[in-house]
């Protein structure tokens, strides 16, 4: 078995982000929101504040650590919503075909034609900022990739003998989709979902940067960047550390996705015969 660098490095980056997020209350040295002290405003990195402090004197390290919770939650939950919508639509469209397939395919193409961030912006504008609206906005706007992939995979699998055999054995359509088709298309879907989670984290950052994400006192990496843009030359640490956090997490997810593709791709798997 060859050494899969992208899988391990990506996994390590992503795992670090997750662990940091989970342990945030333990490893944070200050309260990320209420420990404001204007006397300490915009201190550069040092012993007391390893990543420095922001304009209100809050510890950036603690805010990045706590921000991981929000960014990861948004990224993962939004992608879960996307995957569930995309896979259910793709699976049923591919399997049933007919007018349902035409409808789903049309909707997918429509979604692909609209830039998903603009779409999410519109939803956010209607729902107003906040965690829940962020999850809804991001969870409803980029399911088309999973949907297309699931549909294409199902189209190639549904004429296989084992799917026909299941029909002949009396399996219902739903049972066939869940027990016969889904397990066999899960690999590529996981890859797409991993890459999509990275995309959602970036989208969250973009929306928060535009002021439409998490409400101000609570730290998300995007909103921290947004707050820092005035001081990008005078206090660069304000933007560098949340930026780095986004970079490492998204890079980690993308590498992980590539690594998983190598493992889960049926063509690279050995066929014993």
């Amino acid at each position, binding site marked *: 078995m060859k050494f899969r660098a992208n899988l391990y490095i990506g996994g390590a980056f992503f795992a670090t982000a997750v662990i940091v997020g989970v342990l945030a209350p333990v490893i944070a040295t200050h309260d990320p929101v209420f420990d404001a002290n204007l006397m300490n405003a915009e201190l550069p990195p040092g012993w007391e504040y390893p990543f420095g402090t922001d304009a209100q004197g809050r510890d950036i390290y603690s805010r990045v650590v706590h921000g991981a919770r929000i960014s990861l939650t948004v990224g993962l939950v939004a992608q879960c919503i996307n995957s569930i919508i995309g896979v259910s639509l793709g699976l049923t469209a591919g399997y049933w075909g007919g007018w349902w397939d035409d409808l789903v395919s049309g909707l997918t193409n429509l979604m692909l034609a609209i830039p998903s961030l603009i779409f999410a912006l519109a939803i956010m504008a209607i729902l107003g900022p906040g965690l829940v609206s962020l999850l809804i906005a991001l969870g409803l706007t980029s399911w088309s990739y999973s949907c297309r992939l699931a549909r294409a995979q199902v189209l190639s699998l549904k004429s*296989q*003998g*084992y799917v*026909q*055999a*299941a*029909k*002949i*054995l*009396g*399996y219902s359509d739903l*049972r066939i989709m869940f*027990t*016969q088709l889904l*397990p*066999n298309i899960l690999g590529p879907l996981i890859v797409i979902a991993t890459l999509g989670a990275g995309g959602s984290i970036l989208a969250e950052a973009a929306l928060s940067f535009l002021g439409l994400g998490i409400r101000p006192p609570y730290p998300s990496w995007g909103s921290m960047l947004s707050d820092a843009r005035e001081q990008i030359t005078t206090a660069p640490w304000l933007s560098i550390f949340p930026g780095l956090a986004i970079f490492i997490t998204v890079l980690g997810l993308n590498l992980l996705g590539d690594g998983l593709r190598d493992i889960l791709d049926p063509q690279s798997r050995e*066929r*014993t*015969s």
Partner: protein
Amino acid sequence: MAEADQTPLLAIDNLAVHYPIGGTFRGPRRVLKAVDGIALTVAPGECLGLVGESGCGKSTLAMTIMGLVPPTHGRIRIADQEISAAKKADHMHLARTVQMVFQDPYASLNPRQTVRRTLADPLRLHGIGNKTEVEHRVADIMAKVGLRPEQADRYPHEFSGGQRQRIGIARALILRPRLVLCDEPVSALDVSIRAQIINLLLELKDDLGLSYVMISHDLGVVEHVSDRVAVMYLGRIVERGGWREIFEDPRHPYTRALIAAIPDAFRRRAVAGQKARGEIPSALAPPPGCHFHTRCPLAADQCRSDVPLLEPVAPGHLAACHFRDRATSLHGELVEP
């Protein structure tokens, strides 16, 4: 073979399956007559061999019997159930009467399911037995098809082609059906493995009192396993009868061409005049009259205009050929009886 006085297990009556091809944007609308007016019966305990080449409709016929393709008209009666254009198949009910063995042992098993799951799930779905009974039936059917009990927790990729086909057969038999459709069950297997599977199918038929529809293009296999044989060409049955009549005294030139086409070291020079000429016409545009006339060594004017009906040449032996009553010599010239 006392099949005459029994009610048939499978009765197919004037069955047709037509597919519309094309339409508004895809050129003129045409109709593909995959199955075009077929009547067949299979008695309990009987094996019907179904022979034909690509495009003859044998796979569509199989799918229709399995309830996967609705008939355009005509009807199929299987035991106490009926499938017709008006009446869709009830899969849960049908599943316990008729099952299928597939050609490709690689594509016909779910790669993510163990043998045990493949065999036990249908039992649970149909509410057959409690946990121990399910275990018992899985072990029992595995033993019957020649698999060892410890192989139950393995995945399909851990088995060879022949063993996979045994798993496929076990899956077809787990609900104890009365009729099994075998769609080219050995043609995807290694030559040295085929005899194992053919013998197994015949043993199971006798042990469990099964009926088979054996779909194959391999006449050697069909002759070996069948009680009766039906030959299909472009959606129609051109000849049917007992295996002995079909192979000893074939009356349709297409049946004779099929037999003549089998390479066999012992009959190498006997059959030159009986081979079919040219290619099989497209099922979308079959020739008028007798579908076979374009390739037939006996074709006459009548064959180009009149559709020959499937009529008896002897009790239980029918052929759809205008010249069915005339025997031919080995070299294909017509000989008066």
